[in-house]
């Protein structure tokens, strides 16, 4: 499908890549040959897919392998997603539990309104509000920049595949996320700095969806509380805390589903957040690629999004089985 979108972009992309002014017919011809733009569409399609799967696809504008480029941006998006997700969970779940405990009171009403306002507030407006409040007036935060672990740490992580067999590759991929890399090297101040710099976008992402999560937690918790095993638990004379513990575990299933979808969404890049806060993540990459008709990047990123979607769904399914032992596949 991505291919269809890319294909329907009017104009000759090769011209845009080579550069309108320095148009050298020979260079134009060479680029066309390289990406098979003279061949019929099915041959082009086969070409792109085979190049993608063998990891040889090249970005025509910067002349680099697309995967190098994506893996430069993706860790940053992962970092933002983790910070945003932390806020989401920290805001959503406690509020939801609170609303369920104080059902039909002012607290419950407040959560309902909070969820509605959260879903009514355009993301970019909230970002500017928060910048105004937290950055301009109280200056409790810093903008811009993703802190990196030290150079020696980065090179150590990059050389992991050579030093440790098998899992080395995996470890270095995790370490490429600046926050995790710093953690692996024990550079805790870098981790702290990351949170300090990203907490504004993270807080915004958390506030936007936090109310929605809270509503779901509340509803599924109330559902669970009205079921028969809770009545039985109460009849057995368990303490209130234990009863709630039972209910909470069973209420988690729908919550995990929604959180999973949210995390997947965050991973595929928050285009607007990245634009407002100048974060060079996946959303920015994708936006630039689309506006410049940069097919290879579009296709490779889409491939990555599809993998993320499938992986998140898989993890959610596995979590179901962990939470609820009755579910078996």
């Amino acid at each position: 499908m991505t291919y269809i979108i890319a294909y329907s972009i009017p104009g000759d992309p090769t011209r845009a890549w080579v550069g309108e002014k320095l148009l050298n017919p020979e260079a134009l011809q060479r680029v066309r040959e390289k990406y098979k733009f003279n061949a019929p569409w099915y041959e082009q399609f086969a070409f792109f897919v085979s190049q993608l799967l063998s990891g040889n696809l090249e970005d025509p504008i910067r002349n680099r392998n697309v995967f190098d480029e994506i893996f430069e941006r993706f860790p940053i998006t992962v970092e933002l997603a983790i910070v945003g997700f932390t806020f989401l969970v920290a805001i959503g779940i406690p509020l939801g539990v609170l609303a369920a405990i104080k059902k039909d009171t002012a607290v419950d009403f407040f959560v309902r309104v909070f969820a509605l306002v959260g879903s009514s507030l355009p993301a970019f407006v909230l970002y500017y509000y928060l910048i105004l409040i937290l950055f301009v007036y109280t200056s409790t935060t810093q903008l811009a920049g993703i802190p990196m672990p030290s150079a020696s740490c980065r090179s150590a992580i990059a050389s992991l595949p050579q030093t440790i067999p098998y899992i080395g590759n995996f470890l270095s991929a995790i370490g490429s996320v600046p926050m995790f890399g710093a953690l692996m090297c024990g550079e805790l101040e870098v981790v702290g700095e990351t949170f300090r710099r990203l907490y504004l976008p993270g807080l915004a992402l958390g506030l936007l969806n936090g109310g929605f999560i809270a509503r779901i937690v509340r509803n599924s918790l109330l559902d669970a509380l009205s079921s028969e095993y809770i009545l039985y638990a109460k009849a057995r004379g368990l303490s209130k805390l234990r009863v709630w513990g039972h209910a909470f575990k069973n209420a988690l299933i729908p919550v995990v589903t929604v959180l999973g979808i949210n995390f997947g969404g965050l991973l595929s890049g928050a285009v607007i957040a990245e634009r407002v806060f100048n974060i060079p993540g996946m959303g920015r990459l994708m936006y630039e690629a689309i506006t410049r008709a940069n097919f290879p990047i579009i296709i490779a990123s889409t491939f990555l999004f599809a993998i993320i979607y499938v992986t998140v769904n898989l993890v959610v399914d596995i979590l179901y089985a962990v939470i609820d032992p009755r579910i078996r596949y």
Partner: protein
Amino acid sequence: MRLIYKLLTKIIDGYSLLRDRISPGWSSKNSSRLREWKLMAYAFSKSRIGVLGGLIVAVVIVIAIIGPAISWEPYWVYKSVTDPRLWLHPPCVPPSCSGAPLFGTDEWGRDIVAMSLYGFRISLVISLLVVLLGAPLGIFLGLLSGYRGGLVDEVIMRLTDIFIAFPGLILAIAFASVLPRRIRELLEAFPALRDFLSFLFGLRPQEYGQLAALISVWFAMVIVWWPGYARIVRGSVLSVKELPFIEAAKLIGISERKILIKHILPNVLSPVLVMMTFDLATATLFAAALSFLGLGPQEPVPELGFMISKAATYFPERSWHVVLYFGTLLLFIALGWNLLGDALRDILDPRTRRAIEFRGEGE
């Protein structure tokens, strides 16, 4: 609250009179339906959230209809060119204003309140168009896929999966950056269509280039919008089609089309209606987000998201009032639809509706 209930019953009575005029005996045949509608109106007037949302929506609609006509400043006059003092003039209290508007001006020296009157129209029209085109498309495909099953179901559902797996905003960006050129050509070919659409959006016909951008945003959003409806409708159709009354309808030989439209559709419609109300809020914000990213109309059209994105360049020193004002307007519009949707969800679900009515009688 009582007033709203009376107003709604008047509307329902008027509608039944009208139907009686067309086909005599309609109101006595459908008396149970009319009673149900009146109960809904009663439940609605009892829900504070719904009434508040309804009022906000009514205000937004009225402003959107009359806005471009009553706006005291045309959007195509760049006042700051002749009077540099008006460039991003901050809000002021009357005595010290010396001619500057109360809420401040944008970077062309135009009164932001006057500009928002145009913005309301554009926002409302685009969100209505998206939902009114996206929802029927989704409903149709959902009905088809749920009722037929088999290969049709498989194809449609895999298609929706693809659309849902892909981040919606990015997909819309892709389409919105592709379409304008083609639509522009189309508008040049059909001047009547061009004039009609510019009237709809409250713009001047000569800005049909911006119109093309708006329409491509609309199409891009429709493409992203239908899969949600298709999924919901399919789910409800699957449960409704196994019910005895559908089997009975099949047995007495009613055509498939008639079963779908007359018997299945009304039973799956209420969740869709609720979703549509919520989606009007989402669509408003989504369109604003697209033009915030620079994909919607350009100068001089005062689209809400575009105004914010322009003001963001000078944020926060010179333009905080513009961002704050337009941002709050967007919040206001979306909040109205969301409140209404939240109330409708309770009212259209028979179980919760009965609860509301019961509480009402106890009072």
